[in-house]
């Protein structure tokens, strides 16, 4: 492999890896607070992509209930991305209300909550399919305005062209990660959120509105899923309502690699899996989707707490 190809693949890997990172952070935030994995996360990812697509004023196909429908507004991509992700976040809050809170109130088995989130995933994905059909949707050609299709990072005689989309994705992801890191580590709300994650009962005794912060966590988590879904959708296409489920399963491999509940772990795990996938040789590309799951298995065998996770000690 020559150097140009190496750098290209590395940047491709970092670009997709940064999406894995923000997506997996959504899993991690909820896991660190509630100790459960929200299987509806992948469905919200799908939803975010469709919402952004719709907010840009693009029409849907002729299958489904909303055949050929389009919103009367045509928002530019950045605005649609933010608004679509906010709506995705609000859907996350609604999901918490309907499917998680009643079980938490009762102190139900975490297993039941996991199952309930699977149910929500099934509803969201199939509702999308029911409304707008199962076809592929591609974001319009001018999504990124007048930016060129690719930017040359090498010299004139030794070009290293990188798709602009990849760079946009990487920059957006880094920006989101920076804001989130600042919020969690350096603001009062972030501190309170970490306190709730550490010990909800003690946190509520100290006057922190635990339920409020759980709602906030669901909002942020689902917002991140919406951003990730939109970024993947705009770089490739929205491959039907189920594309978030497959991505969501891969996100599980990311959090196991990084360590369940570890925020830096989710970022590291995402970037690593992105880069490893990018370096799968072309003739084996059909097996690319299995790589992340192979990594998950190996981690369970050798280091179940993940790269940066804390070893869980069960107290009686």
């Amino acid at each position, binding site marked *: 492999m020559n150097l140009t190809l190496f750098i290209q693949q590395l940047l491709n890997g970092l670009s997709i890896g940064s999406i894995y990172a923000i997506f997996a952070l959504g899993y991690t935030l909820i896991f660190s607070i509630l100790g459960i994995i929200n299987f509806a996360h992948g469905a919200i990812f799908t939803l975010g992509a469709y919402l952004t697509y719709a907010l840009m004023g693009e029409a849907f196909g002729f299958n489904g209930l909303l055949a050929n429908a389009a919103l009367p507004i045509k928002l530019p991509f950045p605005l649609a991305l933010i608004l679509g992700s906010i709506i995705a976040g609000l859907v996350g809050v609604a999901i918490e209300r309907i499917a998680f809170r009643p079980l938490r109130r009762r102190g139900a088995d975490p297993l039941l909550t996991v199952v309930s989130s699977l149910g929500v995933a099934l509803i969201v994905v199939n509702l999308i399919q029911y409304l707008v059909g199962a076809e592929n949707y591609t974001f319009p050609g001018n999504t990124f305005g007048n930016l060129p299709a690719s930017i040359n990072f090498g010299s004139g005689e030794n070009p290293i062209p990188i798709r602009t989309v990849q760079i946009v994705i990487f920059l957006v992801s880094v920006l989101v990660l920076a804001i989130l890191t600042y919020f969690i580590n350096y603001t009062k709300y972030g501190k309170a959120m970490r306190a709730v994650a550490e010990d909800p009962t003690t946190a509520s005794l100290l006057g922190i509105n635990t339920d409020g912060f759980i709602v906030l966590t669901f909002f942020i988590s689902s917002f991140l899923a919406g951003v990730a879904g939109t970024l993947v959708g705009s770089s490739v296409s929205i491959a039907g309502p189920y594309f978030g489920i497959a991505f969501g*399963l891969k996100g599980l491999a990311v959090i196991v690699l990084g360590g369940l509940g570890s925020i830096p772990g989710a970022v590291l795990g995402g970037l690593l899996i992105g880069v490893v996938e990018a370096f799968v040789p072309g003739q084996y590309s059909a097996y690319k989707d299995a790589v992340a799951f192979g990594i998950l298995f190996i981690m369970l065998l050798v280091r179940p707490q993940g790269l940066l996770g804390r070893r869980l000690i069960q107290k009686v």
Partner: protein
Amino acid sequence: MAEFLNTYGPLIVSMVLGALLGLSLYLPLMTGQLSLASPGFYALGGYIAAILSTQVFPTNEGSFPIPLLLLEMLIAAIVSGILGVLVGIPALRLRGIYLALATIAFVEILRVLSLNLEITGGAVGIFGIPQPFASPIEYLWVALPLLLISMFLLYRLEIIRFGRAFVAIREDELAAGAMGINPTYYKVLAFTLGSILAGVAGALSAHFLNTWNARQGTFDASIIYLTSVLIGGSRTFVGPVLGGMVFTALPEILRAVAETPGLPIWLAQLLRDGRLIVFGVLIVLGTIFFPQGLVTPDLLKKIKRQEQ
């Protein structure tokens, strides 16, 4: 009668197979472990039967010999059992959600492999799997005894030491460990028994359905069978059997309901095309309002008392 069997034969056999898959998910749940692997082992068993019957065993004219079918089911059971142990041990040493994660990874790896390997026929799958029986309903000769034997064994299991250990682990793994029960051993055992059952059901299904492809064992299928077990009842083996049967027949039932005259068009359409939305709603409502499922041990006791 003959007409009834011709029309509903395939559905009845599917319902029996659905009940077997329900039981295969119920076994790990007995120890409180969420496994999403049953459709994976089901797909694996199906591929084993499909490959053996189309490529290995001599195919002569006429129907496929039944002893060979049973041999395929046995091989599927052995392979599923070995793989069950291999997947189960790393995941079940750990407490918590790890089995669900490992089984998701397992199902996905199997799916990618079956889509890309030559021997599984790639995305097209395997066609023309030979038929041991003349009509679909005759599959009951194998499927029904299989279900009855499994049910009997589970009925026994629930009252002997092994089953008690399963339940003890589900209620409190640490306490069970302190009582001298080895949680990992019993969890792997329960998971492996479930895998074997799913593999055997898959081997039979491949012949029954005549074709086999990568769509057989997906994440979706995992969720649907999980629903059937949880709604049916996850505290006694009767729940998964009833749940598996009803949920296999549910698409047909919904289709029939959708044809009732006088129903609003949007509702009829939702029942016909939005089957999975209905499933999802059932899962969420079921976990909130019937955490033990519809068929609970208490309910069975009540029925027994009334009979006396």
